[in-house]
């Protein structure tokens, strides 16, 4: 009972303390630094504002246009910059079209399956290599690192994949790039840092290596797992060239990125502006709001996941850069 109370009390105290610390951190200017000039502040604010605007304004325009009525799009003369007539009509139209729906399913499928495969293989390998003095882990490590510097290149890889019968197969989009040695090294660096007391305690309780990995190491390295999964998932979600190599003719198997290219940029002379058959509205170029809805659709999954992983990005990237 006292224990609970203490925890409660210290918790509360720590809370106010961090808030105060945060307030101090916001105002803190090192004593040796002279206060900024007004011109300097203005220049800084404008540069930082421009940085933000360059990323956010295009996204704003795209999202807004996708939610606009045809009338609003016409009044704006194209892309909509200020909310006018808002509607979700474009999305309803998009989701009633089988091309986009199929592509969305394909993209999600490749991403989910690919990320699961990549994560399973990477986590196992990273843990297998993270225990000091295990038999042969040095030679496996060398085997891994060599691939970061030497590669067969595009054509030999293409010949191997097609030689194994990968042409037109889903696995050709997943397996050739399933393992990122960089990610394995990042994971391994974290697993090596897991406190050995914790692992020893688990071993005393009779846990084997699989059990230790599952119940001790994985739960203590959630942040890096999330970052690695994000990197893999983004890779699969964005994959486009592998589709072009291995599934170029099969429109049924095209993921969203490919549809975005053939459909949104159709008529702009970009490749793939072949007859990508967009169901009912094939005859003329689709309304701008519909095109922008496809753009938004390729963005949404990323924007859903990103906020949860974003704060860990630095740790993941830097561990890789420093220890890798």
């Amino acid at each position, binding site marked *: 009972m006292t224990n609970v109370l203490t925890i409660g009390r210290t918790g509360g105290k720590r809370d106010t303390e961090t808030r105060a610390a945060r307030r101090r*951190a916001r*105002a803190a200017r*090192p004593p*040796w630094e*002279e206060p900024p000039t007004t011109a300097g502040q203005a220049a*800084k604010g404008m*540069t*930082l504002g421009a*940085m*933000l605007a360059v*990323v956010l304004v*295009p996204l704003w*325009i795209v999202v807004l246009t996708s939610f606009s009525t045809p009338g609003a799009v016409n009044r*704006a003369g*194209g*892309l909509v910059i200020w909310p006018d007539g808002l509607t979700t009509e474009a999305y309803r139209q998009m989701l009633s079209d089988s091309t986009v729906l199929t592509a969305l399913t394909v993209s999600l499928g490749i991403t989910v399956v690919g990320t699961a495969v990549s994560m*399973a293989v990477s986590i196992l*390998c990273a843990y*297998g*290599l993270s*225990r000091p*003095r*295990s*038999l*042969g*882990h040095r030679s496996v490590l060398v*085997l891994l690192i060599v691939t970061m510097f*030497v*590669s*067969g*290149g*595009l*054509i*030999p890889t293409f*010949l*191997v994949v097609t*030689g194994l019968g990968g042409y037109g197969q889903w696995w050709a989009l997943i397996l050739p790039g399933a393992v990122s040695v960089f990610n394995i090294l990042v994971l391994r660096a974290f697993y090596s840092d897991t406190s*050995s007391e914790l*692992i*020893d305690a688990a071993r005393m309780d009779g846990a084997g290596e699989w059990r230790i990995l599952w119940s001790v190491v994985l739960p203590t390295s959630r942040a890096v797992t999330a970052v690695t999964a994000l990197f893999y998932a*983004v890779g699969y*979600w*964005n994959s*486009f*060239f592998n589709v*072009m190599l291995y599934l170029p003719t099969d429109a049924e198997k095209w993921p969203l*990125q490919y549809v*975005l290219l053939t459909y949104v*940029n159709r008529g*702009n*002379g970009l*490749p793939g502006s072949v007859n990508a058959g967009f169901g009912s509205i094939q005859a003329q170029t689709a309304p701008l709001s519909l095109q*922008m809805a496809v*753009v938004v659709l390729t963005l949404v999954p*990323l924007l859903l996941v990103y906020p949860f992983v974003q*704060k860990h*990005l*630095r740790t993941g*990237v*830097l561990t890789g850069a420093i220890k890798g």
Partner: protein
Amino acid sequence: MSTAQPERTGAPEGLSLRHRLRRDRSLILMTVPAVVLLLVFNYLPLFGLATAFQEYDPLVGVWQSEWVGFDQFSRLLGDAMFWHAMTNTLYLSFVQLILFFPIPIALAMLLNTVLSERTRNFIQSVVYLPHFFSWVLAITIFQQMLGGAGALNQFLRQQDIGTWDIMTNPDTFALLVTSQSIWKEAGWGIIVFLAALSAINTELYEAAAADGAGRFRRMWHITLPGLRGVIVLMLVLRLGNALSVGFEQFLIQRNAVGHDAADVLDTFSFYYGIATGDYSYGAAAGLFKSVISLLLIWGANRLAHAFGDDGLYRK
């Protein structure tokens, strides 16, 4: 690896191989899937490089194809298209080095002066974002903003200023792709410089200020030297990658600006190898590029060491 493991500190050298194999069998088993994937998709293609010395015929495979020695390479060296792709690559690499490289450094230094933690975190999470977009998406957004029917030209038309279509202009293609790279990757590039900045000892600033050094003296004598190691490392990496200016970015825009402007070494293998079925020729081009790249990274690293920096590894 200072972690002490009870049953492993007991002189593992004294254990027999069979004993160690038994003890570590789960760990070894865990690495098997990754090793198999790497052997199949990374090491097997290395043997496939043999096709560069053949007249590869997909019908009979690598084993039966005719060996032609360095014929593919001499054909390559006499191919005007190849040299065109090479010149393009070097030119684009140079433009990117001049225009792209300093930006993340400058932005990281600027962001580092933002005192509010919350503002800094917000800006960081926004500028990292485009790194996660695909090239298809990035180029679609550029097309919508700067293209013939894009937001910029829409505005120009409304003001009666005439139009400006940068997306299809081969003459300004280098600037276009560089600005695309900056938009997509410059924000992500600040991560490593920010880390280096936060590692600089603040007492140095304090001492310098006590000695009367102003803002710019401190930047020149403390901040920049503090970043020097990372800057050199990034420069080495960039020089080593001088022949890889990007793939999808050029593939996607090739039709819009024409192959004259958009052919680079990375796309050469694809267009003159896979797309035409001339596999050996494409493989030769790829191998040529890899060898030169390896030499470049080695040379750049030597250079970094000569200047007394660490480069890729400590000497």
